[in-house]
């Protein structure tokens, strides 16, 4: 190690210490509670795997996360694909619009969706007023509302991840495919899609992990009727004070996410994404 490298390494020590002392250690302490609260042993885990209520919460979490991921990826891919094909001036405006949601608090966005989606909200009023439907639709305080809110939250992240991947594809490769006689659909399925697999893999992983632990949006747009893991844990900790079960569930969630990352990191597509330019 050169002295410059030693210095550079040394500069990361304070941040690392801070993270370990104030973040990693407390988390480990909390997770340890799952084995000690209320009594020492695996009781919390036995209860967790036996509980029908927790089973329902896990099922809801998996369904909402899966649907959110698929919808987010499909729609974000379309937006990112369009971004790559825009003229630079139009692209600057479009990228700005993609980023606007980042500046609005997630709480504000969730409540904004309620004003749009509730029974006498903006959307239902417009639909009933125009005579398209007779009765207002149930658009919020159910899985549909939660998924709308979550997809809206996730899309900017997915768009930026996919855009970064798609804009790295050499336009001459696409021209080459055209010069070889390929039509648009063939070029999309044989060239664009395979070359964007790394981006799709990393964006999907990101959205799945984000969805599994999502708290604010499901809590507000689900209003207790769509209970996902994060909200369930929060209720156990702050209301019912069943810390043992809550921390057992947290530990399991952390392990599942860790497992997902480990499996994904072995897939060739994701390895290519992490290796980036070395392709």
């Amino acid at each position, binding site marked *: 190690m050169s002295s410059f490298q030693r210095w550079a390494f040394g500069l990361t020590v304070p941040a690392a210490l801070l993270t370990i002392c104030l973040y990693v250690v407390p988390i480990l302490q909390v997770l340890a509670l799952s084995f000690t609260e209320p009594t020492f042993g695996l009781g919390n885990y036995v209860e967790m795997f036996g509980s029908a209520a927790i089973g329902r919460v896990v099922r809801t979490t998996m369904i909402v996360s899966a649907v959110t991921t698929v919808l987010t990826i499909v729609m974000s891919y379309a937006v990112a694909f369009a971004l790559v094909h825009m003229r630079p001036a139009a692209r600057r405006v479009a990228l700005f619009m993609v980023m606007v949601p980042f500046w609005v608090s997630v709480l504000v966005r969730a409540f904004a969706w309620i004003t749009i989606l509730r029974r006498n909200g903006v959307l239902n009023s417009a639909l009933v007023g125009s005579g398209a439907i007779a009765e207002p639709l149930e658009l919020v305080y159910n899985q549909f509302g939660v998924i709308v809110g979550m997809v809206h939250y996730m899309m900017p992240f997915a768009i930026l991840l996919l855009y970064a991947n798609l804009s790295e594809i050499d336009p001459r490769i696409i021209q080459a495919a055209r010069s*070889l006689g390929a039509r648009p659909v063939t070029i999309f399925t*044989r060239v664009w899609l395979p*070359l964007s697999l790394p981006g799709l893999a990393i964006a999907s992983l990101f959205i799945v992990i984000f969805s599994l632990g999502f708290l604010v949006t499901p809590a507000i747009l689900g209003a207790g009727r769509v209970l996902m893991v994060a909200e369930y844990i929060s209720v156990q900790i702050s209301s019912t004070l069943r810390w043992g079960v809550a921390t057992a569930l947290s530990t399991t969630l952390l392990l599942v996410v860790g497992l997902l990352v480990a499996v994904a990191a072995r897939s060739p597509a994701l390895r290519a994404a992490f290796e980036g330019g070395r392709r």
Partner: protein
Amino acid sequence: MAFLDIRTLRKAYGSAIALDGVDLSINEGEFVTLLGPSGSGKTTLLMSIAGFTRPDSGTILLDGADITGVDPEDRNFGLVFQGYALFPHLSVANNIAFPLRVRKWDKARIAARVDEVMKLVGLDKLAARKPRELSGGQQQRVAIGRALAFGPKILLLDEPLSALDRKLRDTMQRELKRLHQETGVTFVFVTHDQEEAYAMSDRIAVFQNGNIVQIGSPREIYRAPASRFVAGFLGGNNILSAQTDGAQLDLFGIRMPMPAAYDRTRHGDGAITVWVRPEDIALGDVAPGAVCFSVKVADVSFVGTSERVTVITADGQELSVLAPSAIARELTPGSTATCALLPSAIGFLARE
């Protein structure tokens, strides 16, 4: 009628004119090189032939049929890009098979053709490799094989050798020449490198500011550049001022009988411009009939097979001379030397 006919093609990007009414006829099976400095319009013309650039006006005829508005995917021209543009996710064999799959050939026919093409471009042992596992020269061969696989009518090449080192470039030049002869496909090749153009082409079209300023065989263009630009662009030519009354020529303050190449109506009289090739000037030894003049040596630099000697003539003009090392080694900057020149080696440029 020519095989590929380009008629008064124009293309402007904003106020920058890329093609200013280009006319060019290419015969079937010909190897034509578009040669010029960057920004002279040669690549714009190639991309117009490929179909990726839409000209503002003018027509492109293939075998008499207007293809100006035809999409690139319908033209059936092979295109080799600068940087090759191989499909990074496909193996060598699958890169070459791509245009065949697109054309829905059956499996056995594709396999046979891929084999044939890989032998043609000398890649038979690398079928399963991905492009990133190949050297630059091998990637080049894949790109050429892929563009030739489907039997295109024309192969368009956009500076394909510019990324290769010199030795590999020489090999690839011979390869391209061989492929041209073996396949009989019409080649249109873009380069800014005159030696590349000389080595491979049947004809060279020299570009300047969106126009073809001269077209002809390599020897014609080398021996008789049509303008000051062509004479200067084609490497190291000495462009000199001279005086004439129509009967005798004053060059370097020496009066000599007028060479036969001079034509008063085309080249004018009074102050005129002439060119002399560096290899046509002799240092020291004097051939019969040569004109001698003394010069001052300014610089001697080794260029491999010979030495490039820069000298200043009596009337203050700078002159570049190629001389054998044995002679040039004797010279030191600041010394005087004697040069000899056959009047027949003097070329005249048309009045502009």
